[in-house]
C-alpha cells in the first residue's frame, strides 16, 4: 500500500518528465546514438577489434579519386535535379497559388498529390515502360520514322536524371505553393500601381517573399537526391556508382561496415557543407539588396 502511494506521488510530481521521456528516448536511441555508433565504427580496424584499437586507415582508403568521383557525381546530379526542379516547379506553383480559380485549384492539387502518394518504386518503374528499348518513346519515334533503330535510354545518366526530376518535382512544388499562396494580391497590385513592370514585381516582390519556400524545397530535394539509392538501382543499372548505391554495397553486400561507415561519414560531411554553402548563398542577395536600399 505504501509503495503504491509512493509511486503515485512520484508520477504526480514528475509526470511531465515521465510522459515526455519515451518519445525523446526513442529519437535519441534510434537516431542520435546510431550516429555515434557509425562514427565509432568508422575508426575501428575490423568489426571485432577491441575498444581502443582505433585507426584512420579507412579514411586513408577513401583518399582516392574513385571515391571523390562517386561523391562528386552524386552531388552534381542532386544539384542539377534541384536547380531544374526549382525552375520547373516555380511556374507551376505560381500558377496554382495565384492564377487559377478555386475549383480548378482543388482538382489540380489533387492531381499533383496523387503520384506523390503512390508507391515510389512503382513511379520509378513506370518510367521503364516509357524509356525501355521497346518502350513507348522508341515505339512512337520508330512509327513516326524519326529513328530507324531504337535508342538505348534506360541505364543512361539522362534517364536517371529525368526520373529523379520526375520523382522530386512534387517535393519542390508543395513548399513553393504553400508559401506563394500566402502572398496577398494587394502587394503585387501595389507594386504594379507604383509603376513596376511584371518582371520587376516578380524579381523584387514575389521572389523575396517566397524565399523560405525555395529554401525548404531545395532541402527537400537536394538531401534525399544526394543519397538516392533506389532510382539508380532500377533505372541506372550498374554503370555508375552513386553515394547511395556504394553505401548499400558496403553494408549489405560487401559487409565491410567499417569502410562503409567512414564513407557514410565523409558523404554526410560533404552534404552538410553543401547545405551550409547554400544557406550562405541565400543570405548574400539579401545583404546586397540591403546595401542597395542604403
Amino acid at each position: 500500500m505504501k509503495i503504491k502511494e509512493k509511486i503515485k506521488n512520484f508520477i504526480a510530481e514528475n509526470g511531465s518528465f515521465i510522459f515526455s521521456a519515451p518519445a525523446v528516448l526513442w529519437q535519441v536511441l534510434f537516431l542520435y546514438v546510431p550516429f555515434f555508433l557509425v562514427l565509432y565504427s568508422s575508426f575501428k580496424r575490423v568489426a571485432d577489434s577491441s575498444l581502443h584499437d582505433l585507426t584512420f586507415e579507412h579514411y586513408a582508403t577513401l583518399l582516392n579519386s574513385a571515391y571523390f568521383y562517386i561523391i562528386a557525381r552524386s552531388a552534381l546530379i542532386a544539384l542539377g535535379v534541384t536547380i531544374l526542379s526549382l525552375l520547373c516547379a516555380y511556374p507551376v506553383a505560381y500558377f496554382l497559388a495565384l492564377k487559377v480559380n478555386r475549383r480548378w485549384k482543388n482538382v489540380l492539387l489533387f492531381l499533383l498529390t496523387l503520384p506523390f502518394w503512390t508507391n515510389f518504386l512503382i513511379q520509378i518503374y513506370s518510367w521503364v515502360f516509357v524509356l525501355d528499348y521497346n518502350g513507348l518513346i522508341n515505339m512512337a519515334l520508330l512509327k513516326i520514322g524519326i529513328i530507324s533503330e531504337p535508342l538505348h535510354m534506360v541505364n543512361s545518366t539522362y534517364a536517371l536524371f529525368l526520373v529523379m526530376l520526375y520523382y522530386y518535382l512534387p517535393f519542390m512544388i508543395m513548399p513553393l505553393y504553400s508559401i506563394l499562396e500566402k502572398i496577398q494580391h494587394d502587394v503585387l497590385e501595389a507594386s504594379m500601381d507604383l509603376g513596376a513592370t511584371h518582371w520587376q514585381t516578380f524579381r523584387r516582390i514575389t521572389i523575396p517573399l517566397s524565399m523560405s519556400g525555395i529554401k525548404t524545397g531545395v532541402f527537400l530535394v537536394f538531401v534525399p537526391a544526394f543519397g538516392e539509392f533506389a532510382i539508380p538501382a532500377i533505372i541506372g543499372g550498374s554503370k555508375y556508382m552513386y553515394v547511395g548505391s556504394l553505401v548499400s554495397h558496403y553494408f549489405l553486400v560487401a559487409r565491410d561496415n567499417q569502410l562503409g561507415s567512414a564513407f557514410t561519414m565523409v558523404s554526410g560531411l560533404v552534404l552538410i557543407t553543401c547545405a551550409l554553402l547554400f544557406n550562405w548563398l541565400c543570405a548574400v542577395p539579401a545583404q546586397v539588396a540591403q546595401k542597395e536600399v542604403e
Partner: protein
Amino acid sequence: MRTASSYIMPIAVAAFYLFLYIPIFVLIVFSFNDNAFTYSWLGFTTEWYSDLFASTEVWHALKNSLLIAISSVALSLTLGSVLVFFGSRAAVKRLLLLFYGSLAMPEIVLAVGLLSLFSFFAVPLGAITLIVGHTLLGLGYVVPIVHARFIELDVSLIEASYDLGATKRQTFFSVVLPLLAPALVAAGLLVFIISLDDFIISFFCAGASVQTLPLYIFAVIRTGASPMINALSTLMLLVSSFLVLLFSFLHIHKSRMPK
C-alpha cells in the same frame, strides 16, 4: 484583355501534368495487355489481376506492410501526443529540433545507423526492427504537426477542465485528444502512407525473415518484372487516390469549421 503570353503559363502547366501522368497512364494500360514478354499490344486481358489475387506472396507482403504501418502509426501517435501534452511547453519547444533530425538526414543515413545499432546489440532483424525504424520516421512528422495544433488550442479550455476538477489524465483523454483529432488523423494518415511506401529503411532493416510490399515489388522489378506488378500498381493507385480524396475531404472539412 488576353494576349498570347497569358496562354504560355497554362500550357506550361498542362505540359507539366502530362509529364506527371504519362508513366502512370502507360502503367495502367499495360496492366491489361495480353503480352508478358514485350511491350507490343496483343489484346485486352485481366489475367494479371487474377494472377495477382492468386499469388500468396503478394498478400503475405501486404499483410506484413499493413501490420508494420499500423503499429508505427499507433506508436508514433501515442508517443507524440503524450509528449506534446504532458511535456512542459518550454521543454517541448526546445525538444522540437530533436525531431527534425530524421527529416534533415538522407534516409539512407538513418538506415545505416539503425542497422549498425541493431547489429551492435545483436538484435535480430525483422518486423520489430522495421516498426522501430518507421516509428522513428513517423515521430519526425507527428510531433511537429500535433505540436503546431496543440499550441493553437485555446488554453482556457484546458484550464476550465482543471477548474472543474478533472485530473491531468482526464483532461488529456476527454478534452485535449478530441480537440487534437484533426491533427492526429492527418499525421496518422501521413505516417501510414510513409510506412507503407518506405523502401530504404525496410531494405536495410528487414533482414531475410520479413518481406514488405515495397521489398516484394523491388525484388520482382530487379529479376525481370511481370505484368502482375502493373496490376498491383494500378490497384495501389486506386487505393491511394481514395486515401488522398479522404485526406482532402478531412482538410476541407477542417477549414470549414468555425474558428
